[in-house]
């Protein structure tokens, strides 16, 4: 099973596939082996990846050139090919079996249960894995009220980010009487860096379709739309193929399973707007109108698409439905907590070793996800600073709090949101002010422009953060940011505006000192904000290895071999390459004022840096 997810495809899956198949043919075992492209496996950092069955050996970092060797060793000689196996990052021990690899071992797959083991373009594969059994049960053996009840009892909450109880939404959808009703799947997934929904749509499209048809039965709707962002062409292709297969097999269309129930499904492509992930804006987009949210005069379940009752849920939410119906609400409740039942898929990215797609029960502590599954920090010697959850609507949780479970309540209490599942691990080379600025830049750009506070307020906040990062911060800016945040949150029309200030508020809550350093001392201690730092080589620590000079792109480091080097401030562009390279910790990041300071002052600042770092570590521990 060769991973055919977008990530691995981009890394060269098709070339590997071609090489593999050619090699099989060459060695004469073409008839006994089969290369199947599966959906996203999740282990994206090491792609292209592959699992070999029946033994379940996992290979990563595949290249076409390695294929002859792999085939020779594993397939002809029966000796698994160590070179391409997963290696546990500290001791470099090879772990052949997928079930033993920590990244996979600690996950409990519900939504992603078929990833990597089926061909998503074959309906038969899905059916083999108990596919469409839930549909049959819902259609033949259950009344709509009963379906709604099992979903309510399961405690499933909307996985798109709002966490609204799914059963409650379906209950309202069933209750409203109307000649026309709709089911809509939100596949817009706009959070930068999030790819949970994409992976589900690519790896297991039928799970989404089955979930939607069941929703149709439960709410007595006969037409569904899957809204997929146009930037996901593979997901669109896989979904369309799956839909076509369903129509052919009589799983969609009129009189499904001879029950008299009709359901039609169609894909609608987005057009490049983050705001169209908001439910009411999404519906306007399907109607062919400008994608702007509508004030909630009526819930969408009462008046949604074309003013008809519409139940809208996220891709992941729908993907949970078939198993809940099949296995019962009790089964789903056995995972997670009372208020946050079941599992959640996270896109685990950032400064860790094992980057990729992760599904865990909701009561899993952050620490387990980041260290056991994520494999800890990727950069040698660096510490974890915080984890950013929920994308541009979310916030940061500092390392000290990593023992909290990743439930809706616990995360919210600590100033962030679970959101759609984006999880970015930040190490201590990250500037938190810059992080907040990054998210505000995104939100201000994606604001639809309809309501005053979001349209103008987010831009004002971004401008202010930009000024701070450029050295123009002044006394009172933090208070202004907090005031702006409060105003924008209390008056914005939709979730985009209401959550846009969150990254700022959460970084202010835990990393206020960074803001203060940026504003008062004009100093970015991580060296990310170029206008707020000066790079300086402490000659007492420099070994003269010259690695930094080789890394420098602007010829700003001078020095002889084995003698202490010096940074020429006039040429330095503050790119931080030297600091990233130095193995001896001899480069210090000093405030802006160091550029013009005299030698003795600089030396004093350099010494002070160490003290300041020590101080902050103590403060962290104290927290």
């Amino acid at each position, binding site marked *: 099973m060769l991973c055919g997810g977008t990530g691995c495809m981009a890394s060269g899956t098709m070339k590997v596939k071609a090489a593999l198949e050619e090699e099989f043919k060459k060695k004469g075992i073409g008839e006994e082996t089969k290369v199947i492209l599966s959906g996203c496996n999740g282990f994206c950092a090491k792609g292209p990846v592959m699992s070999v069955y029946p033994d379940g050996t996992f290979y990563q970092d595949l290249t076409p050139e390695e294929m002859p060797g792999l085939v020779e060793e594993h397939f002809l000689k029966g000796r698994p090919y160590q070179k391409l196996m997963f290696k546990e990052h500290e001791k470099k021990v090879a772990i052949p079996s997928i079930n033993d690899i920590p990244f996979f071992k600690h996950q409990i797959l519900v939504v992603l249960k078929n990833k990597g083991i089926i061909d998503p373009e074959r309906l038969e594969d899905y059916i083999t894995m108990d596919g469409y059994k839930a549909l049959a049960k819902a259609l033949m053996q259950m009344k709509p009220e009963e379906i709604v009840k099992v979903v309510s009892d399961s405690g499933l909450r909307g996985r798109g980010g709002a966490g609204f109880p799914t059963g409650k939404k379906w209950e309202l959808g069933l209750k409203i009487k109307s000649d026309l009703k709709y089911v809509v799947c939100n596949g817009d997934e706009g959070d930068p860096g999030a790819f949970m929904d994409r992976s589900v749509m690519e790896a297991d499209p039928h799970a989404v379709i089955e979930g939607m048809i069941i929703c149709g039965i439960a709410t007595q709707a006969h037409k569904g739309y899957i809204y997929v962002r146009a930037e996901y062409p593979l997901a669109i292709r896989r979904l369309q193929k799956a839909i076509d297969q369903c129509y052919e097999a009589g799983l969609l269309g009129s009189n499904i399973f001879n029950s008299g129930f009709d359901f039609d499904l169609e894909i609608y492509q987005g057009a490049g707007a983050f705001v169209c992930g908001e439910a009411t804006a999404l519906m306007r987009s399907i109607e062919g109108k400008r994608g702007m949210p509508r004030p909630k005069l009526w819930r969408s379940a009462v008046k949604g698409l074309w003013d008809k009752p519409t139940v809208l849920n996220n891709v992941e939410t729908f993907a949970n439905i078939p198993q809940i119906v099949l296995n019962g609400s009790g089964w789903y409740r056995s995972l997670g907590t009372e208020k946050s039942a079941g599992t959640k898929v996270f896109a685990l990215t950032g400064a860790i070793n094992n980057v990729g797609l992760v599904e865990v029960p909701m009561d899993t502590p952050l620490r387990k996800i980041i260290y056991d599954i994520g494999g800890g920090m990727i950069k040698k010697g660096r510490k974890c600073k915080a984890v950013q959850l929920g994308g541009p609507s979310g916030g940061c949780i500092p390392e000290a709090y990593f023992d909290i479970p990743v439930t809706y309540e616990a995360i919210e209490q600590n100033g962030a949101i679970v959101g759609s599942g984006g999880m970015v691990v930040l190490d201590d080379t990250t500037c938190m002010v810059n992080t907040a600025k990054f998210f505000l830049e995104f939100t201000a750009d994606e604001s639809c422009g309809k309501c005053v*506070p979001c349209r103008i307020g987010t831009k004002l906040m971004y401008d202010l953060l930009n000024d701070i990062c450029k050295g123009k911060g002044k006394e009172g800016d933090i208070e202004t940011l907090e005031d702006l945040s409060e105003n924008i949150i209390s008056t914005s029309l939709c979730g985009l505006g209401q959550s846009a200030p969150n990254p700022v508020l959460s970084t202010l809550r835990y990393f206020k000192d960074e803001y203060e350093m940026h504003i008062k001392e004009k100093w970015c201690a991580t060296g990310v904000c170029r206008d707020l730092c000066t790079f300086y080589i402490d000659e007492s620590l420099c070994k003269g290895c010259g690695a930094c000079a080789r890394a420098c792109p602007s010829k700003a480091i001078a020095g002889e071999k084995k003698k202490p080097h010096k940074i020429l401030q006039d040429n330095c562009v503050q790119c931080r390459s030297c600091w990233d390279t130095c193995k001896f910790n001899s480069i210090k990041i000093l405030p802006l004022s160091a550029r013009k300071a005299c030698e003795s002052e600089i030396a004093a600042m350099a010494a002070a840096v160490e003290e300041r770092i020590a101080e902050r570590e103590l403060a962290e521990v104290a927290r």
Partner: protein
Amino acid sequence: MIELTINGKEIKTEKGKTILQAALSNGIKIPNLCYDKRVVPFGACRVCVVEIEGQRKLEASCATLAGDGMVVLTDTPKVRKARQAVLEFMLVHHPLDCPVCDKAGECDLQELVYEYGKPNGRFVKEKKHSPPDTKGPLVELTANRCILCGKCVRICSEFQGRGALGFIGRGFSTVVQPAFGEAIECDYCGQCIDVCPTGALLNKSLKYKARPWTLEEKDTICPFCGCGCTVTLGVKDGKILRARGREDNGRNEGNLCGRGRFGFDYIYSENRLTSPLIRKGDELVPSSWEEALNYISDRLRNIIDSHGPSSIGAIGSPRCTNEENYLFQKFIRDVIGSDNIDSSAAFGYGLAEKAWEMSFGQSGHRIDLKSPAGKDVILVVESDLSVTHPVFGLNILKAKRNGSQLIVADSRETKLTRHSSHWANIKQGTGVALLNGIMKVIMERGLFDDKNTLKIKGFSDLEEILKDYTPERVSEITGIGVDELVAISETFAKAKTRMLTLSVGVSENTKGLDMVLAAANLINLVGESPDALQIPAEYANSFGLYQMGIRPDAGPGYKISDNTGKGISDMLYWAGPNMPDIRDADNGSWEELDKLMALKALYIMGTDPAVTFPDSSNITRRLKSLDLLIVQDIALTDTAKLAHVVLPASSWAEKDGTYTNAEGITQKVCKVTELTGQSFPDWQILKNLSLAMGKDLGIEDMGDIVEEINSLPPVHILPVNRSFNPVNYAWSEGTDVSYPLNMVVRDLLQHAGSMSTRSKTLGLVSSEARIEINERDAERFGISDNSHVRITSRQGTVYLKATVTDKVPDGTVYVPSHFPHSGVSTLTCHSARKGISMDAVRVEAA
């Protein structure tokens, strides 16, 4: 009803209303910038946020349903802070244009900022500086003042059904622009100007002329169409500078069309008459009132003595007030002794009245502007009501939005066809065949209550005539499919509530008495109340003048005369019912026919037959042959140029009086500006003329006229007495090799009659008649867009510019008759049958 508490006050409201609506209807003000009751709540400005007990967040009151038992607070510190924040955001990039912005003084943004205190201006940012968009002729869009409340966009698309403005771009860089940022192309109604809360959209014709607080505002009734909209005129130093609608004001509820809003400046045109004129040789020479009135009275006396009073005719005016029209007919009947009095209503409202009397035994046919609301089915036949009666058209669109089925049968694309539930694309002039076809289907399928309907007089005649109108034949005549015809008939017949509406008037040539009778037949067949047939009186006082007795067969108050005088047809088109149709020139020379015509003198008040009546070259010839032609008007019209005496009258804004609109509602017209030159209100001229003739009309002042009118016996409302008056589909002219195209005369949205063509402002949008021809016909005859063409009919030749468009069907061209210089009315013919005219033309490149 539900109860809720706002600021401690208990109020009641209907279920389904928002908090804002509940508050406003109970006299509680909640500030708002993007709310307008005519369109769906938008929730963009966030100024109307309120606190609701039990809810954590502030909610926009315009977009939150009022709940039973809700406790709402609209002015707490939290709410004030939020409002101030939102206003602060708006002002960050809003230019400080107040000193040079026409909106200052009536600017909603200015008012709110003033009330909520000066925001601390802590963000110093570059103001937006897009230059004002002055490409459009009437509306000036200054994008940097725009706060993106969206009201203009929504009024134009949701309410007006036009959608000329939209949001372009996203986020901070969003702007309101016409499509693709090009010059605005729209109906030029100006509703967007009235609705804009800032100076972003301004009335270009008013720019820099007056600060709002220097304008004295007075309400009056619009002088153009029969809707009778209340218009608020802004007057400075005695000059009218602007017209606007005020929310909820008048039968139009504050809505106005382009004519009402921009057209009032026709009273300031250069050819306003400032003194009486008397013909001396070939010229019209200014004279004094004494001279002019004496001249008239001498000549009239001579004519009466030589040829008798019935040789004198009169044409009243739908632009003059009730009082003036009443006095006019009194003068003609009592002082002159003639019953030959009629008006342009003979082509329009008069036909509706006649059909009313014939089909329902009633008089005083009136419409209800609000009648479309709640109807299951609205059927519009061959009429562009959005153009002839814009506010009525808006109510039709509103009804459609709220669930009515709108079926529009028309030969060309119009706003109504675009918004219809179904557009039956019939050939022009085939409305009678369509209606007959519908009746045939209903009869065949028994979709009517035969118990009562069979008893109606004329039913068997109807049955007999309808034998020829099988679905197949009707389909052939009209061009729509048999299935379509059947579907429309069934829908109309099975509707629980319905409305059938069309327009008739002097400016349209494909509908006549037959059409109205056919429509009335259909109403009688389905047993619907006569109210369901809505044919609006054309102009501001067409209904009124008819009621005042400007008609040859009845006096004021619909009192049928014992002696019926000559109407327009007899006065202007042929010599009498026994005489042949004047176009039949084989029967003698024109001179002989003219001699036979018994009219020697004609007194025309406020009408321009040489421009607006069909077959106008013939009319001109006829008018020239008179011994005495008196024209009393406000401007030197083409008709006035033919007169022996021209008397200067005061315009609608220069006198007091009343107009009665198409709904039969009498409303006050107010004097807002001084008389022009030596002009007088028409009633004063008549009084003076009467005195010059040695007769006393028995009135001293306006009050006396009003008293006399009020003392008329009340009109009895007779019970409905139905009869069928079957009509056949027939036409007077057809196409042939020499005249291969059909010509339809229809109104333009910017104009009503020819009076509006004297408005400079309206002239910026539409100042010349254009002939509309489609691409295939244009190619066939070698016509290109915007080129000059020669149009020839059996009556005359005219030169116009062509517009090539796909909105008109094959084989037919469309022209308007408003413009004096275009001469379109010389092409049309006047049908002897009082049916449709169906003029045919040929078109060549000029």
